[in-house]
């Protein structure tokens, strides 16, 4: 028996333990590997791609490479020199030949409205490469815009490889031609409003879900099994119907000629139909309905684990029911409240279909704008930047929640 110890004595015990554990670690890794790879491709990859797209500035360097190179020596004051004009003329000819001019035109048009026309008309009217030394005059002759500082500053600001333009735009900021960060023009400054609205709706829906879900979860956790199973089926029922169907059902119920208004009018309680849908009320109603199970289930799972003995103990120690609830029961449900709120809030701020269908023009959330920029205008940069800002603010909230949840360990007793 001692011989075995002596034989291994030259290898430290910790190392031998690690060696023995290694096989098990490999097996554990093998078990999660498929999911890990799946997540890498479907989750981490796309998010990284989105963040990259929000700063990627490839259009102008690709379409106007010589111009970008020539402008690198320009100090940004006044107008650039003759070589820059010559490079632009050369790039325009090549771009016209390859048909890629629209790509750069679209990007530059974000910076200066009307840039698209300037670029395409110049390319169209530039029959041949200008003689050496006359490029500046030729281009200004074709379009006087080439004699303006703003148009050259636009090319310079969009010459990549990365840009802060989209991210700034996503929070209603932009750069003036000199590169200083300023507020966006009023007609373009909408995203702060939209983000504010998105978070307000998220908070509102979360609060409604908590208020409505908490008693149901309590009931579920405390009813006899047979009744609680039945109730659980009702809670889960919404999961078995498609989101679109449920949302449309709300339209049927809430519209002017819908069930609610019809009943109220028939009862004579109202003369005119109430406006229940295509406004914020409808959005709250439908989203709360859809997201309620996500609040109830985490609450239920936490409440199930709270022994009824705690409330009995509190009562036997002299606590009236309300005191016992607030000091003994509620604090123990905090993990469930936190998990439920975080889940509902994060799902809510990403909502798209429901607000689009039951909300009015002023109730569209950030996802609607992201969808608009990806599918309608194909402005991947701004869509990604809005997504990145949404992601960032969600992460900040999750961190704050984490800090709060850890911070409030104990209350009651001597401290209260």
């Amino acid at each position, binding site marked *: 028996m001692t011989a075995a110890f002596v034989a291994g004595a030259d290898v430290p015990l910790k190392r031998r333990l690690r060696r023995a554990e290694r096989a098990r670690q490999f097996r554990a890794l093998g078990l999660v590997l498929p999911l890990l790879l799946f997540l890498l491709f479907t989750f981490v990859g796309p998010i990284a791609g989105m963040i990259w797209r929000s700063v990627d500035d490839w259009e102008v360097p690709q379409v106007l490479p010589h111009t970008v190179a020539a402008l690198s020596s320009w100090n940004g004051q006044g107008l650039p020199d003759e070589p820059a004009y010559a490079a632009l003329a050369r790039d325009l000819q090549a771009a016209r030949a390859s048909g890629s001019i629209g790509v750069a035109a679209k990007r530059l048009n974000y910076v200066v409205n009307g840039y698209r026309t300037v670029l395409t008309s110049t390319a169209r009217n530039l029959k041949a490469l200008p003689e050496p030394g006359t490029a500046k005059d030729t281009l200004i002759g074709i379009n006087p815009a080439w004699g303006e500082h703003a148009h050259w500053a636009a090319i310079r600001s969009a010459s990549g490889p990365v840009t802060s333009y989209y991210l700034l735009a996503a929070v209603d900021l932009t750069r003036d031609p000199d590169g200083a960060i300023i507020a966006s023009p009023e007609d373009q400054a909408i995203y702060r409003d939209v983000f504010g609205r998105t978070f307000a709706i998220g908070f509102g829906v979360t609060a409604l879900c908590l208020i409505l879900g908490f008693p149901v979860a309590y009931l579920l956790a405390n009813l006899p099994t047979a009744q609680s199973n039945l109730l659980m089926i009702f809670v889960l029922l919404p999961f078995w119907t498609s989101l679109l169907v449920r949302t449309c059902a709300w339209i049927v119920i809430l519209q002017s000629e819908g069930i609610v208004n019809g009943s109220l009018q028939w009862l004579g309680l109202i003369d005119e139909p109430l406006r229940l849908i295509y406004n914020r009320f409808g959005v709250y109603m439908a989203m709360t309905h859809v997201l309620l199970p996500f609040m109830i289930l985490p609450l239920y799972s936490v409440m199930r684990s709270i*022994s009824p*003995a*705690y409330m*009995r*103990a*509190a*009562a*036997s*120690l*002299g*606590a*009236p*029911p309300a*005191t*016992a609830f607030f*000091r*003994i029961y509620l*604090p*123990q449900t905090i993990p469930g409240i936190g998990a439920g709120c975080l889940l509902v809030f994060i799902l809510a701020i990403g909502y798209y279909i429901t607000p689009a269908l039951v909300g009015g023009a002023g109730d569209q959330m950030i996802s609607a704008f992201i969808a608009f920029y990806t599918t309608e205008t194909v402005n991947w940069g701004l869509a990604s930047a809005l997504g990145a800002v949404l992601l960032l603010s969600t992460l900040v909230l999750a961190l704050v929640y984490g800090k709060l949840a850890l911070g409030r*360990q*104990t*209350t*009651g*007793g*001597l*401290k*209260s």
Partner: protein
Amino acid sequence: MDGGMIATTQSLVRFVGVQKTYDGEHLVVKSLDLDIRKGEFLTLLGPSGSGKTTCLMMLAGFEVPTHGEIFLGDRSIKNTPPHKRDIGMVFQNYALFPHLTIEENVAFPLSVRGVPKAEAKSRVADALKMIKLEHVATRHPGQLSGGQQQRVALARALVFNPALVLMDEPLGALDKRLREHMQLEIKRLHETMGITVVYVTHDQGEALTMSDRIAVFNDGIVQQIDRPDALYERPVNSFVANFIGESNVLNGTVENIEHGYARVALDAGGSVLALAVNVAGPGARTSLSVRPERVAISTGDDGDPAFNRLPATLTDLIYLGDHTLAMLAVPGNDEFMVKLPAGAHAGLAQGQAVTIAFRPEDCRALDPV
């Protein structure tokens, strides 16, 4: 209430004709009349489902009697909610609040009563000192061992000086050694603090060790309520005789009763004189109960003629250190047990034909099993 129901000064709690049913068909507690005296340690002992825990829950206020009254002092507490009863309770799984520290747990009953903070602090310190756990005051319950948690639960139930402390199988989750240690600790607290304790358990050893009186429950009825030694020595029916300690049972029919002794003809032949405790009269069926340590084994046929004698065959000898257990086959009972003091089994061998002898006063004629 009825004028005749005013409690005497020394009884703290009175159950008067209490019945309880959960389903409206089956009575869990059939008819309970029970006096709990001030300062006593009363144990409700019985198998699971016998109604003892239901009684405790009715006393604590978590269950409402279907019929009857419960008096605490001289007021009926039937309609008093649990938090106004001023009864401390210790639960089987301790029920310490997991999100509060030990001192916050112990302070809880004081803080809900609005005891000033400084006073609460010193009372909590005293309570923790009493259970010798001052050093864990700032920890959370999850960081304590089972025994420590149970002591904290005790301190929490005692810190507000309740009139009555209820304990619902508080030691059930502890291992044997710790349980025995805690039994003595609870007994010590009871004696030093002079509190009234109602203790529920299904462990008869625990009940015998700790109690001033034991109420034996079965089938929703208190079978017998008495001091531990009286319960063991003088059970009034077969259930108590068999539930408390070991008992040898012999069935027979009463032939006659004279001077409190019954002559019983055993079913398997033979006749025995027994103390007539719970028999209807001549001709009635009866079960005799004899404690294993009250029986002697002899190899010859000599001895005191006043003793009951029965032929037996020794089937097994089990050595248990401080005593030896002899298993015998007696007509009508193949598992007759006799406890022999250490060293007294010399000369006995398995399969040997012997005679067992016991005094009539050690043999109790009880209701038929």
